[in-house]
Structures are given as C-alpha cells and as structure tokens.
C-alpha cells in the first residue's frame, strides 16, 4: 500500500548536495511530498527531512539509492508512531471589524502567534503536525487567506538513536553487519 514515509537524511554540507538528492529522487521516479533542509547538531552536516510517498519496498529502494550519494551519511525512515513531526505556516488573513476578534480567538485556540497587523489583515504563524495545520487553515479560509507560506515537514524520532542503521540496509534488513 502507498503511504507517506518520513526520511530523515543526514548529509555532508557540500555544494550541490540538495541538487544531488532531489535529482536522484526525480530520476528514479520517487515522489517527494515535501523537503526541508537545515543545519544539524553536527558542524559541517545538514539534515534533510523528505516526505516520500510509495510502497514500502519502493521507499526502501529510495533509501538505498540515497546511501549511494557520497554526501549522505545516514538515512532514517521514521515510523509515524515513533516520531514527532512539525510544520509551520504563515498566513495573512483578512480581519477587520467583528471578524478580527474571531480570528484572534481562533489563533489562540491553535496556539498560533500574531506576527504583524494592518488595519485590514493579521499575519499569523502556526506550528503543529500536518493535521493541526490543515485544520487551522480550514478555519482561516472562512475569513479569507490573502497570502500563505507553508514549510515542509521536519521530524525527529522519539528514541535516543535513529531507528535504522547503514548496516541494516546493506544486508537488506535480515541481519546487521555487526552480528
């Protein structure tokens, strides 16, 4: 069955590394739902969060292909139940007169923050998982969204370490190489 996998990819901070990752996914026909890139806890390393849609074996193949890129140090397929995911959205919502206070109230319900205001609009930032953001946006649409920008997903596993090591991949998950 097709479903979304969240891949956390630790990469060396090299020129063109984003290009290499995206180009690989394109040419092997893997679908990227979203991608985010930023610094990681290690100097010289970046962490990408890729949301990839596909059958389990397709995503496994994507993972193995990613490992073949020289800059890719580690790929972790984060299981949904075992990971926290976050997205961020910024919206400019029409808000004047009576609706202004309704927007502010709703923002509070969703734990969102007002970043800026004009006489006719409010700029609001919300973070949460995909569903919370979707639900927040549904509410804001009622008032009229003038502009919106949404980040890709970032994610982190709950366990103290990653869930999938390179050794698992190299023997197709049957035994770890360290055995």
């Amino acid at each position: 069955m097709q479903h979304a996998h969240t891949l956390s990819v630790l990469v060396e901070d090299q020129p063109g590394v984003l290009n290499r990752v995206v180009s690989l996914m394109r040419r092997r026909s893997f679908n990227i739902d979203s991608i985010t890139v930023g610094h990681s806890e290690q100097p010289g390393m970046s962490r990408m969060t890729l949301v990839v849609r596909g059958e389990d074996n397709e995503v496994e193949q994507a993972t193995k292909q990613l490992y073949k890129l020289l800059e890719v140090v580690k790929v972790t397929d984060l299981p949904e139940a075992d990971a926290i995911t976050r997205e961020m959205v910024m919206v400019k919502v029409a808000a004047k007169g009576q609706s202004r206070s309704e927007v502010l109230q709703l923002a509070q319900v969703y734990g969102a923050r007002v970043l800026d205001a004009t006489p006719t609009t409010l700029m609001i930032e919300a973070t949460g998982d995909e569903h919370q953001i979707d639900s927040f946006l549904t509410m804001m649409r009622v008032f009229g969204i003038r502009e919106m920008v949404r980040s890709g997903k970032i994610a982190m596993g709950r366990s103290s370490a990653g869930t999938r090591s390179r050794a698992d991949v190299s023997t197709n998950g049957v035994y770890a190489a360290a055995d």
Partner: protein
Amino acid sequence: MVTAQRSPGQAAGKSEADPAAEPEILTGSEITCRSLEAAGATTVFGYPGGAVIPLYDALPSSNLHHVLVRFEQWAGLAADAYARATGEVGVCIATSGPGATNLVTALANAQLDSVPMVAITGQVTQALIGRDGFQEVDITGVSLPVTKHNYLVQRPEDIAPTIKEAFYLAKSGRPGPVLVDIPKNVFVAKTAYIPPTKVGRKSYQPTITPNIRQVRLAADEIAQAKKPLIMAGHGIILSGAEAEFQQFAEHTGIPVIYTLLGLGAMPEMHPLSLGMMGMHGHRHVNRALEECDLLVNIGARFDDRATGRLNGFAPNARVVHVDIDPAEIGKNVETHVPVVGDAREALKMLLAEVGEGNHDAWMRWIDGQRNRVLEAALEDRPEWPEPYSIVKAIAEATDHEAIVTTDVGQHQMWAAQQFGVRYGTRWITSGGLGTMGYGLPSAIGAKMGRPDLEVWTIVGDGGFQMSFNELATAVQEQLDINVAIINNGYLGMVRQWQDLFHNHNYSEVRISAPDFVQLAESFGATGIRVTSDDEIRSAIERARSIKGPVVIDFVVEPEANVYPMVPPGGSNSEMVHDPQTPQDQE
C-alpha cells in the same frame, strides 16, 4: 549552508608532507599531471581545446602517454575499454562545453556497466562561471545522473586530493565513472604540491566482506537445491574473482549461465558453462532458468535484457543474490538471501561453507534442452560468409586468446552467442547502455592497455560508420588491431525488430556505406573484402600477419536474424526461433 565550499583536501585527504622538505610550487596543470601519475595512470585518451590548453602545456613534460582521439566520446569509450582490459582506472580528458558534453555518452556507458573511469574536463575561468561564458556548460550538473560522483575544483590546492579521491571512488566498491571539472584559471594558478597521503570519506564505506550469517544462509540454500543454477555477472570480472568463481562452480557442481557482461567469468568451454541467458540467450539456458529451483546470482543486476518479463523469470526458483551494491538487492527481482559484498570475498567465504556436490541428472536434463538442430545448422556453410562462421573463425584462429570487443547490434549478439569467451577481461562490449560506435574506440583502448594481446573488434556497418574516424587514431598510434565488419547493409537489429514485431515495415534501416576497403586505405590502414565463405579464414590470417590496423569488410546476407529471441516484454520462456530452422522434437 548547502553552498559552503569544501574540498576533499579539507576533510579526509589531509596532507602529511615531510616537514623537512620544501614543497614544490607547481601550476594546477602540473599538479593534475603529477596526481594522475601518482594514481597510477600511464595512458590518457583526450582531445585538447580552449579550457584545457594549460593542461596540454604540462602534458609533454609528464610521463603520461596521451592518445589523441578524433572525437571526445571515443576518448571516453577508449578509456572505458582500457579499464575493462586492464582492471585499472581509465582516464580521459576533454575541454569545457562541447568537449565535456561529448563525454556524456561515455560516462553513461561506464556508469551502467560499472567501469572505473576518471574524466578530467576543463571549465571556463572561474570569473565566467554562471555567466554563459564561451564554451561554458555546467558539466557537473549535466553529468550528475551518469557519474558515480563528480567535482568542480575551486582551488589549485584542491586538485591533488580531489584526483586521489576520484580514483579511489572510481575503483572501490561498485566501480564507476568520476568526473573532475577544473576551471582554466585553476590550471594556471600556482601552489605548493603536497601529495595527499590519505583518502576516504566518512559517508563512503562500501561493504566488501559479507556478513557470515548471510553467507551461511546462502550455503543452506545451495545444500538443499535439487536444480540450482549460477548466474554469473560482470561483478565477478570487476572484482577479479574468476579463479574463485571457477573453484566455487566446480566444488558445488552447479551449472553456470552468463549475462552478456558475465561472459568469461569462467571459460565458456568448461563443462559446467551453459552459455548466455536472456533475450538472445541459448534455448537450453532459458529453459534451465524456467526449471531451476535455486538461482545464485553473483555480481549481476538482473537487467531486463537478461531477465525478460519479471513475473515469468525463474518462476520456480529461490534467489540468492551476491552484490556489492545493496541497492541492487530486491531492485528488480525478489531476493530470498541477499549477500552484500565483493564477489571475490563472498566466493571465498561461500567456498568455506558449501559442500561438494554434483548435479549430473540436472545437467543431463539441461543438455536435453539444447537446440541440436540449430547447432547442426550452424555448421552448414553456405557460399556467402555467415556471421556465425566469421565469429567462430576469429575465435578459432586466435584460440579464444585474443581480446574481442564489439559494437552494438546483431553482430554483438552473434559474437556473444558463438565466440566462446575464455577470459572476462578479453570480452569487451557495451552492455547496459548499448552504445553504438563502441567497437573501434574500445579496440583502441584495449590495445593501449594490453599491447601484448591480439585485439579484434567485431562491428556492424552501422556502428562502424559512427566511429570509423578513429582509424586515424589507430594509424597515428600504429596500433595492431583488426576490425571485422559484419556488413549487411542494414541497421540489422532494428531491421530485425521491424521484421518480427512491426509487420516487416523497414523504416530507415537500409544504410549505404563507403567502400570500406578504400576507406581503410585512405586512412593508411589495410582493407580486405570478403564475399565468400571460403575466403574467411585466409582473410583473418592475412589480417593477423599485417602490422597496423586492418579492416575486413565481410559482406554478409542482408536479412539474417539473431535467434533465438525473446520478444520485447516477453518472458524468457517465450523465445522465438528461426522459422527456417526446424526445431528439435520436445
């Protein structure tokens, strides 16, 4: 953050020069030559041009032998064949822009066949990069999907560590092509030359030694199998595991089938050798695949030309797959036991785990599937020279010891079916990419790498017309190579498809040609024409006795097809046979 510049020199290849010695101050070009020499390169194939003029300035004072080709693509393919013949990394050089883009096909060829190669390209001067400078092409961008890795070198001090790393990447793990793009001003700039001593990257650790538990699982499968088959791929030859492989096959008594690039993993005349599998594989081989209960794939990637339709491939078999690239496991064919590692290491470990065996009954069954009528028909000699007769005559005249390279098409399949390859490194053909024009440049590359061996290339009249300009290179280098043109006046393989699958609608396959004898003579080579069967052997002997390049134009029957053939999209059990040749009773 993703734009930060960093070179391998700053990461892994930290230089450790003798502190007492003052490092030499050299130009980037001189460092490039020194680095190539340090990596073991002796021969480079290339073509000069604007951005690499500084590099060519330094070449004459280096120890590198530069082979001046007539087109950059043939430089790349010659380097590819050099690598296949020697086991060393092939090196090619091209200028920026069109020179670099002309290498792309050769890079793709090496990438698909896992051939170790390093390409050095010139780039426009750094100040012009991104400004559409004269002959500027973003070759690192263009070559991204057809290289194992590539680099744009930004500083002269990065050249030495980058080239060292490029050779290491090209040769280690699953081999492949690596491109190093060097801007013109970086070639010109001077810096201290400090030979790097270390190479390696944290994120690049190919698995060489397989997991012993996987090996034991594979050994269990082998012990239980009643009708096992070994599928031999290019990986065996790339890892130099031919001796271990033969030992393994003999010890277990399991018959061996070959992919196109696996031919020669063990001599084809060995009693356990069954021949090539797949689209133009032998009937008994594809029948054995259908019947086998265990398929042990060593170093092949289950290419579609080998497997046919996947859901009809080895339908009764459990699959053991030995591959150095974990991404190949399960990519095309579901694998029951993966063994990730170098073929040689895997075979050594397997040998220690498997018991002696013999599969005489199974071998007899397979033997019964041979197409004896076809085999007998091949011995019938019509008056005109027949492709099979030509291939066999070359094989016999050279006692299967010569290097034989091919172009791409019908002649390639005839050669693969009938040559009888004895050594993997002496069967040089473009497998994955199917690059027409490969024949002559690959013969040049192979001869440069193995001047001690006789070199033949078998080509079609179509492919030869793509690359015959390299006769000039062969004459200039005084290379003793022999070209056998299987000349049928058609783009034969496409004509065959049109014949069999497109209602005989011959569209753009009739191809005229120059007079190949006169053509060869005009280049300063020797030309021989053969129009009847009884001239084949004498022409081959004459070619062998003449020093320098010889072209034999074998004028063959125009519309012969390669049989058997699995129709495109068909399963290997759906082979089509020659309607002219009666089939055995089954």
